[in-house]
């Protein structure tokens, strides 16, 4: 599998929130279906990464994605999950440019600043835009293990349907104990979510440390 991009990170979190399926469908292209955790409730993934080594050097990134089923029939490896990123933001304009070109992620045009504050029982990510708060997300740990996850990312380039394989490796913890939280502030980056029916607490919290995110070549399908 040809590698297109490799990013080493110090911290990476992904918190899963329930969102209305109607809202999820509104952001998904017609060929993708949201996974429902229960009737009419789909999954919003809010992820934040503190990259300490990449082609553009260290930077931070925040991503909103809808969780979708991975396509298992046509691929040689089974992915654990699929995701469709519908809005991203970074602290680096260059990182934004490269990922938009390579992966067609839809980026917020202004740079953001994300602080990762780690304590023994949680990591808190405070995201700002021009000094104004955008997002305050906390994720908590359960037991840690070293693991690799294979995921599928889905993107659109105009009318072209694309997908990529994505490996994330590192120290990892996940649980559904509902100890995390998220606060969204009015901002162009979050306004769409503020209008939607999104749960204020994550039903699943993922936390990676000291890992690597590897993107493989995009394929049209």
């Amino acid at each position, binding site marked *: 599998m040809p590698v297109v991009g490799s990013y080493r990170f110090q911290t990476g979190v992904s918190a899963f929130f329930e969102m209305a399926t109607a809202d999820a469908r509104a952001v998904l292209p017609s060929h993708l*279906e949201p*996974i429902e955790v*229960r*009737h*009419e*409730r789909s999954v919003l993934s809010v992820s934040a990464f503190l990259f300490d080594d990449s082609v553009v050097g260290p930077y931070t990134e925040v991503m909103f994605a809808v969780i*979708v*089923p*991975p*396509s*298992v*029939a*046509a*691929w*040689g*490896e*089974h*992915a*654990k*999950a699929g995701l469709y990123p519908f809005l991203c933001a970074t602290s680096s304009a260059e990182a934004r440019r490269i990922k938009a070109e390579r992966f067609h992620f839809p980026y917020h045009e202004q740079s953001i600043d994300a602080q990762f504050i780690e304590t023994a029982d949680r990591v808190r990510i405070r995201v700002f835009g021009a000094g104004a708060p955008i997002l305050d997300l906390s994720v908590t740990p*359960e*037991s840690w*293990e*070293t*693991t*690799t*996850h*294979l995921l599928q990312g889905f993107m659109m380039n105009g009318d072209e349907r694309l997908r990529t394989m994505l*490996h994330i490796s590192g120290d990892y913890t*996940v*649980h*559904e*104990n509902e100890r995390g939280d998220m606060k969204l502030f009015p901002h162009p980056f979050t306004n769409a979510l503020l209008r939607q029916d999104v749960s204020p607490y994550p*039903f*699943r919290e993922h936390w990676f440390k000291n890992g690597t995110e590897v993107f493989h070549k995009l394929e049209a*399908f």
Partner: protein
Amino acid sequence: MSDMNKYSSIPRATTEASAPVRRLEVDELDASRPTVPAAMEYDYTNFYFGAGDDAFALLAPFDDWWSQVQPAGYYLYELPLHSAPGTRVDVKDTKTGEIRRNLVNFASYNYLGLSYRPEVKAAIKEAADIYGGGSSGSPILSGTTELHRAFTEEVAAFKGKEASLVFPTGYSANVGTIAGLMRSGDLIVADQFAHASIVDGMILSKAKSRFFRHNRADDLDRKLAGFAGKKLVIVEGVYSMDGDVPPLAELIEVCKKHGARLMIDEAHSAFVFGPSGKGVAEAQGVDEEIDIHLGTFSKSLGGQGGYVTGSRKLINYLRGFSRSRFFSCALSPVVVAGLRKSLELVQSEPHLRDKLWRNVARMQQLLAERGVPFGESTSQVIPIMIRDDARIFMIGEEIFRDGVFINPVRYPAVGKHKSRFRMSISAAHTDQDLEEGAETIARVLRKYGICQS
């Protein structure tokens, strides 16, 4: 690529139970213990949708996965019993082909031990002689016998309601009641841990569906707020994976505030909770404040079927609009005959309920003494918390082979890292059953660092 390499996760090296359970260090673990296949990190949710236009596109990938996980643990489901679901059972080990005999049974719902009582079996035999095996028709056509009619009245009388309706299963009772009553444009709000039959009823009704946080009246209040139109709130009497009960008085207050009707599914609580066995609503003193009472006959009565009770007007309406009843064959009269006898025993032998609660208290004591974590259960459903999705089947296999029949439950039936064994206590369990079962479970859990003592 080998089959194993298709699954990308690396099996975990260590495990951790939730506090205050002691955590094993790596060097304390038995190095010879078999590792968990990487495929076990995957589950049914990975095979729900698939690419391609062929409706069979997912069959081959699923079969590939299943061929690895079935012998690694999933075989523990659908193990065939070779005996009645009593407190001791003979079960076929489909992995080895052996019949494992005289296992202590904590897997069956037979909470009052009624399914195999001689009086029940005699009633069944008598009905079989008269009616044969099946009802041979929908209840509205030819499927209703005099047994059905009498039983329906007896259920209503027992529950203290004007009327009742009997369904072929508990599943169809929920689906038929919810979809029979609610329509597109209405709102249904259910507890987030509501049973699949409740959720499926909500889907079939086409009403707007919301879920409130488990047992949280404040969240129910938020979910009902601002909706103008018909509203139905649905809770359960005992939640089947955690064994806890709802705070009904608080929930009723919220329902009244918003003009919502309240339905309770007492599948696991009817016939065992409350002074006369009506259920959790009776036990909490709010029976009359709940609009729709629903339940099953497969748990405490040890038979099969479901029911809904309430006002005569409600039941008359549902008789016409519950499609899952209307378009199903009626319960077999043989089953109904057994249920009638079981219901009679529930009323004539209240000491069975006393015995059940003594057994529940005894088992909680035995588990606590051995440091077995069993959650927040306040009922005869006791979750043995393992919290290790990868190894629960391995632990379950050891418990099974050491003489206890108990069901493992893992994601997606419960949350990630909330794996557990679901223990069902019966009034029929003897002290020896309880002690032997608790000791066997504790002995295995100790090996895995899940017991404190």
